[in-house]
């Protein structure tokens, strides 16, 4: 194992330990903030499968998130689903929507892709607002968070913040693990080939369109899962889960964290969520400060916080390695 791999594993292990003992470290109020960070991290990761890895900028990712949230809450309320089937239903709903919209949106690139995703998101938002019988319109739908049924153990109550935290942690960790693994698989690698040069991929035997539809489904599945968790967390869902603010929120969080690395979106979500919490205690104009940070990053650090961290690390640790590399090249 190289030294770098060892460092990464140690960092990961330390992170897992911190997450495992988190409830002992922070107040219940802050534990809820950590749950929010976990859920939105998953949302941002799913967004980055398209944005960072596939190079497709979606302005409408809230469509999948919102449909997931509505699905879980409606399944809890109207069909009496327990927790896990409800969350799973949300992911499947997200995935199905990913297929239906993917058929249309991945035909296009760049600006047109962005505009079409925006249009579909606006359409679904309008649908959620008008279809009062199902969605409750602006009033939304509320449903208590159901128990988690585990075969052999019976029902585990989810009313306790502690139980709920561990449930979300496990679901998000497993999903993150899958998304990480995905980047190492043939389809995940192809996804990055398509970002780099979609045109060439056609001439080496790839059906670009079909591949991008599948990637869109995977991304939408996890966005739906994040939405399902968010619905269960709030025990309530309304049009703010599917509006364009939500779509831009995930975009900004991913951008601030940096789309060029796998963990950048998680960093962005953690940073902005914490910042919002902290600033909103100090001033009611915290969105202004958030906006300034966003603009500054776009202008001066387009690789986001993760890009900043990497360049700082390279400067501190990599100077020697860089010298060695140059020596090797000129040799």
């Amino acid at each position, binding site marked *: 194992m190289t030294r770098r791999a060892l460092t990464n594993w140690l960092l990961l292990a330390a992170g897992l330990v911190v997450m495992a003992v988190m409830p002992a470290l922070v107040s219940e109020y802050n534990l809820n903030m950590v749950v929010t960070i976990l859920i939105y991290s998953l949302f941002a990761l799913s967004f980055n499968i398209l944005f960072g890895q596939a190079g497709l900028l979606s302005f409408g990712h809230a469509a999948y998130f919102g449909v997931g949230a509505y699905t879980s809450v409606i399944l809890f309320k109207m069909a009496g689903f327990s927790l896990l089937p409800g969350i799973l239903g949300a992911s499947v709903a997200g995935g199905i929507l990913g297929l239906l919209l993917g058929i249309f949106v991945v035909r296009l690139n760049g600006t047109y892709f962005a505009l079409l995703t925006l249009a579909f998101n606006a359409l679904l938002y309008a649908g959620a607002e008008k279809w009062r019988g199902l969605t409750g319109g602006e009033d939304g739908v509320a449903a208590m968070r159901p128990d988690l049924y585990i075969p052999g153990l019976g029902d585990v109550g989810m009313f306790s913040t502690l139980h709920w935290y561990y449930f979300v942690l496990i679901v998000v960790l497993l999903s993150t693990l899958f998304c990480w693994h995905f980047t190492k698989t043939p389809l995940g*690698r192809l996804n990055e080939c398509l970002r780099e040069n979609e045109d060439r*991929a056609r*001439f*080496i*035997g*790839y059906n670009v369109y079909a591949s991008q539809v599948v990637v869109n489904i995977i991304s939408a599945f996890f966005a739906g899962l994040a939405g399902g968790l968010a619905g269960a967390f709030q025990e309530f869902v309304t049009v703010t889960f599917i509006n364009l603010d939500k779509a831009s929120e995930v975009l900004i969080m991913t951008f601030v964290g940096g789309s060029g690395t796998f963990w950048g979106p998680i960093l962005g979500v953690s940073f902005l969520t914490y910042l919002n919490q902290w600033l909103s205690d100090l001033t009611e104009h915290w969105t202004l400060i958030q906006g300034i940070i966003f603009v500054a990053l776009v202008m001066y650090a387009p690789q986001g916080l993760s890009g900043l961290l990497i360049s700082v690390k390279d400067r501190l640790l990599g100077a020697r390695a860089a010298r060695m590399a140059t020596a090797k090249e000129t040799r």
Partner: protein
Amino acid sequence: MLEVKNLCKNFGPLEIICGIDLQVAEGQRHAIIGPNGAGKTTFFNLLSGNYKPSSGEIYFKGQKISNLQPHQINRLGLGRSFQITNVFPGLSVLENVRSVVLSRHGIRFNFFRTVERMAAINQESMEILEQIGLAERAGHLAGEMAYGEQRALEIGLVLASNPEMVLLDEPTAGMSVDETREAVKLVDRVTQGKTLMIIEHDMEVVFTLADVITVINYGQVLASGPPDEIRNHPKVKEAYLGTGASC
């Protein structure tokens, strides 16, 4: 191996290719030459499925391919390179080649197994890098390599799909004399046993590599035959060789 029948392509009123008939036998090394704007690259774009013909037909191994998509044509065993380097710049050299090898083995939608663990795929990819002389560059980003190396990778991407027929669009474009010599050796070596069709401006290259030369001018076949016949063809001399300083 390849048969082109009365092929035409026009963009609006502009006729680029008008009535090309051509046959390429298996194992033949066929060069396409012609002045700038003669329609050579458009011809390749039609063969590889990038453009749809306005009329006429293309058959590859007896199968009609003029209505197929580029990826379908590639899977049948017709690979092409590009005049302007067309690689995956932000990925490593190994990954560039590996993406082709994966496709050739039909591993296109797998999202369960990691690529690192596919030993046979990685070994095959490394073998191709050895063939094109880039094995030591495996970990480098394709977009950060020297121009000559990128051109070699361009050929490597064609090679990796192990096509029965290879279309090379000016593999020596923009190269110095020395680089060109190396590139010709590379092309000669890696296309042994395959059917080759090559667009080339450098006459020395053409006469070294090809056993049949087709001259295209104004989207039509001006002449086609063995190198000696083409060299002495009066119409060709007039249209191309006579005025070309490269001869």
